[in-house]
């Protein structure tokens, strides 16, 4: 796979604070890559570094194998879609979209046809002569996209592209964005703090926190096998507990936690005996019933059903375990919850060894 954008130990300080700290990343040609993290995690700064609107203090940035560290933004083959679109208020939709081509000195005819095609692609052909303040939020966003895409950049950078849109519009724009990316075969790098967006849109994503990249992978890898507590906690819902590795045997290891039976997990490569670890199980991987189900699951923990929250397509069951932990179990409403279950009842939480995960520990839970 050809590498399109490569960051090599890039750092950027804003005064005394570190916005981006020694970030190394490789983004492949034609992929939809997301930078996911809470606000202040340095993802927007990273985007501005790639666009050339900021320059790194340390490290190298390559676009298509060319070092671009000192290249001004107008000389880079990338275009940025700004968070609040930054459409030029004194120009029509047509002139906004044509701006990049005009700066490049394209001929009038070429501009006419390229802008026309682009507006058609984002379904705005009837609005070419409108001004930005006459457009709805969704239309403004499509203009911002068109203005970037019409230049056929090697990389399209998107800064929180959905942040200013309402929920319904957001769904439509997800599909729109994915369609455009596939039609143009362009590399998209998208900054977002919304995990569902990142999981749905991305081919791969990087989870960021405090200016560093915590983990890079496909949405499935990130969700199923987070490599740190921070990633597991940030992405989706999880149940955690700290414990000690007591025994290892081939692919299997056992974790002990005071008050619980020994718990069986697949052994991570890094695991060492008597190491303190955090175990993690996603709520939809847990099975809940009054009695242990036969054939037996690898792990069975007794507990008390505390409350049941109906949530449309699924039901969330909160179970208090013997060690003062409360875990949540997600039961799909396609299979009815055993009707005998009700709050206050003794239940058993059970799962297979392969459905849990072991993380290096940083916190005590």
């Amino acid at each position: 796979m050809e590498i399109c954008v490569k960051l090599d130990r890039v750092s950027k300080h804003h005064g005394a604070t570190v916005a981006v700290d020694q970030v190394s990343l490789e983004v492949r040609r034609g992929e939809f890559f997301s930078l996911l993290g809470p606000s202040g995690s340095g993802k927007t700064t990273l985007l501005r570094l790639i666009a050339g609107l900021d320059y790194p203090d340390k490290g190298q940035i390559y676009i298509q194998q060319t070092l671009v560290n000192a290249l001004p933004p107008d000389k880079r083959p990338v275009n940025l879609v700004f968070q609040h679109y930054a459409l030029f208020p004194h120009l029509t939709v047509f002139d906004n979209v044509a701006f990049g081509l005009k700066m490049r000195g394209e001929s009038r005819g070429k501009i006419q046809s390229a802008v026309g095609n682009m507006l058609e692609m984002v379904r705005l052909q009837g609005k070419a002569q409108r001004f930005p303040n006459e457009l709805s939020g969704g239309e403004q966003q499509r203009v911002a996209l068109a203005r970037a895409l019409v230049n056929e950049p090697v990389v399209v950078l998107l800064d929180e592209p959905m942040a200013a849109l309402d929920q319904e519009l957001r769904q439509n724009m997800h599909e729109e964005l994915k369609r455009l990316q596939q039609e143009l075969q362009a590399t998209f790098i998208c900054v977002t703090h919304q995990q569902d967006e990142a999981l749905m849109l991305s081919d791969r994503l990087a989870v960021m926190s405090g200016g560093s990249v915590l983990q890079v992978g496909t949405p499935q890898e990130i969700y199923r096998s987070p490599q740190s507590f921070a990633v597991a906690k940030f992405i989706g819902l999880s149940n955690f507990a700290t414990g000690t590795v007591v025994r290892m045997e081939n692919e299997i290891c056992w974790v002990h936690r005071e008050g619980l039976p020994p718990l069986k997990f697949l052994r991570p490569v890094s695991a060492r005996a008597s190491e303190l670890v955090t175990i993690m199980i996603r709520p939809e991987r847990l099975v809940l019933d009054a009695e242990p189900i036969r054939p037996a699951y690898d792990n069975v923990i007794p507990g008390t059903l505390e409350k049941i929250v109906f949530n449309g397509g699924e039901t969330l069951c909160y179970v208090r375990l013997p060690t003062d932990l409360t875990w949540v179990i997600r039961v799909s409403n396609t299979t009815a919850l055993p009707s005998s279950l009700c709050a206050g009842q003794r239940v058993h939480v059970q799962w297979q060894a392969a459905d849990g995960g072991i993380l290096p520990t940083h916190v005590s839970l």
Partner: protein
Amino acid sequence: MSRLPRVLIWSSAAVVLFLYIPILVLIVLSFNDSHMGAVWKGFSLRWYDKLIHNPAFFEAMLNSVLIAAVSTGMSLIFGVGAAIGLEGNRGRLLPFINMGLVLPLVIPEILLGVALLMMFVLLQIPLGFVTIILGHSVFSLPLTIVMIRARLRKLDPTWEDAARDLGANSWDVLRHITLPLLKPAMVGAALLTFTVSLDDFVITFFVAGPGSTTLPLKVFSMIKTGVTPEINALSALLVLVSILGVGGSWFYQQRSGRVVTQSLS
């Protein structure tokens, strides 16, 4: 909105009346069919007729317009440049520069007039159009800079980022983004400085030379031989032009300001 106390309404009305009654009286008397100033003898346009058939008046008007146009144009060119330079600057001297810029607007005009006269004499620049235009720039330039900077501060810096990202160099950004977005402020500043220049008396009085009599100077010289209704007519015209200029400046800024702030939200 809560109702204002009656006292406030009446006192506001009194202030407005106090400000405008003299001007109204002047305008009304300019239509008076009488040689004597204060006695109403019927409606007439004869003073306006007399005015426009007075070649000295036309000469003074041409001088005034020429001086106002050139000093406004100069202030605009240098003012916009200075404003952009100052807004992009975060130097330690900036507060002092800012203070220095508004000083000419608060220093008594008569001092400025004397100072300018002394300077021109020292530099041996003959008094006339050039000195009046330079003199007017002393207040036109700070006015322009203040107005342009106020507008610059409202512009979203990401517009510049967006333009740079789309391939514009610094010059392109200035030409295609900054200047068009500054246009309302530029028109507003131009209308205002044009009006102020047209009306200026004190500085002009000191730095004018032979053959460069402006309208206010003309009015002043006519008054020396008694206040005739012809002066009333001339003054009424000056008032009208000033109101149009200042009103136009305000209106234009309001209207175009709205477009930009709307697209920001």
